[in-house]
């Protein structure tokens, strides 16, 4: 079976056999370490570092809104230091990973699908294979690994910034002191909150990059085909994030 035909389930092959064969392919591509290691650092910078500004932007506003929202909910009902708890928990466990993931699904998923889609329709993927490279080792593995490694890093940034902006909002716009905010933050903090968020975001990175690669490599036709793959990569990436988010909540909480 050629790699080019491998993206469809071939007739006569059961779903399980198909998944098995694809896993085998993935394993082989991963074992081709010499091919993908030199490309990994480049992709980590492109997919990860370059995504930091958008993640920071989202985090700042999320922190502000959460802080204001929780004070609105808690006023007259619960001690105000709970603002710190709510901001911390939700940013670390849910909004940090998911909102960052969604933003990166747009940025990273689309750019991967568009790049690989263009390479596919202009026969660059074929050209790569005639030079005896494997498309999975050379194109897919470095991107998927880079996203899996870098999404948590970007998310960690976003969480720190989000909590920080929540805190600044609380002490400036709400009648809250730093001590109170920190009290709330610490009282309910568990180490699990942090790694729960980071594990989630790693899985989001994996899914987003994989969707981008698969849609990109399955592109047919010209510019219109590239447009379609890009759109569907982003949609699939966002859907995957929401499904994984629910999955981790069920499994880990």
């Amino acid at each position: 079976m050629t790699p080019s035909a491998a993206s469809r389930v071939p007739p006569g092959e059961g779903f399980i056999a198909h998944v098995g064969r694809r896993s085998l392919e993935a394993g082989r591509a991963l074992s081709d370490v010499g091919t993908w290691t030199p490309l990994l650092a480049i992709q980590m910078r492109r997919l990860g570092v370059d995504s930091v500004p958008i993640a920071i932007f989202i985090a700042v506003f999320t922190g502000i809104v959460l802080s204001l929202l929780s004070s609105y909910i808690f006023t007259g009902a619960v001690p105000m230091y709970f603002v710190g708890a709510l901001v911390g928990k939700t940013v670390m466990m849910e909004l940090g990973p998911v909102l960052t993931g969604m933003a990166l699904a747009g940025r990273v998923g689309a750019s991967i699908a568009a790049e690989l889609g263009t390479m596919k329709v202009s026969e660059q993927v074929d050209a790569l294979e005639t030079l005896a490279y494997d498309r999975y080792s050379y194109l897919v593995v470095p991107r998927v690994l880079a996203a899996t490694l870098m999404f948590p890093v970007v998310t960690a940034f976003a969480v720190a910034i989000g909590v920080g902006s929540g805190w600044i909002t609380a002490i400036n716009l709400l009648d809250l002191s730093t001590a109170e905010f920190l009290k709330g933050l610490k009282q309910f903090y568990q180490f699990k909150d942090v790694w729960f968020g980071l594990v989630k975001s790693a899985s989001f990175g994996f899914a987003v990059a994989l969707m981008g690669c698969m849609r990109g490599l399955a592109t047919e036709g010209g510019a219109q085909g590239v447009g379609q793959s890009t759109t569907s990569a982003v949609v699939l990436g966002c859907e995957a994030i929401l499904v994984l988010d629910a999955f981790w909540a069920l499994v880990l909480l």
Partner: protein
Amino acid sequence: MIVLDNLTKSFGSSSILKGLSLEVPDGQNTVIIGPSGSGKSVTLKLIVRLLEPDAGCVKVDGHDVGEMDRDELATLRGRVGYVFQFAALFDSMTVAQNIRLGLVRRGYDESAIRERVEESLEVVELLGSEDKLPAELSGGMRKRVGIARAIALKPRYILYDEPTTGLDPVTAAVMDQLMMRTRDLGVTGLVVTHDMRSAFSVGDRLAMLHEGSIRQVGSAREMQASHDPVVRQFIEGRPERVVLEPPVRRSAG
């Protein structure tokens, strides 16, 4: 030797190849001629398994390409150079990097790589363009880089997909000379073209592809003396229906 045995290939409902058989003897240039859309590029792709035939088989040096595993396929692709119809250069890489990529894969050391890059650029008369990006080149220059990328690997076979279309007459003649020189160095060439001038000067053997199979095979002289009306019509470049009158031009006023 490359042997194409009774190849059949359809895309959806349109069947492109219907039992194509052809032998490509070693040490010669074999030229496949045939109208646009007759499946010439598809035939070349079947040889290095960028596409798979629906039926029939391709044998290179006696080995069935369809039965090769991943490593055997990589070895095969190392021995068969491929010049793409639209060059298929990696557009994020410079000219030199495009040529280097295949050499790096073969594990040559840095000085050998540099030597080969320079050598092959000299052959296609593009020395000095090493650091240009494909977007900065004309169509003909890109095509020559594509040829340089294939010959840099010193393969045993080279498949040229329309190497002279889009080139000016002088550069086209240089490419013809290049293909003859490569043949004299012992490289077997399979050239696809509808440039009859090039076909006659380069081809030791010509094969006419018509409606999915090989209509006639022979030397340039044999083809020129052919009594087959289809072959005659193609090499003389006569339109299928004779246009009797030019469309009437309406005068303005």
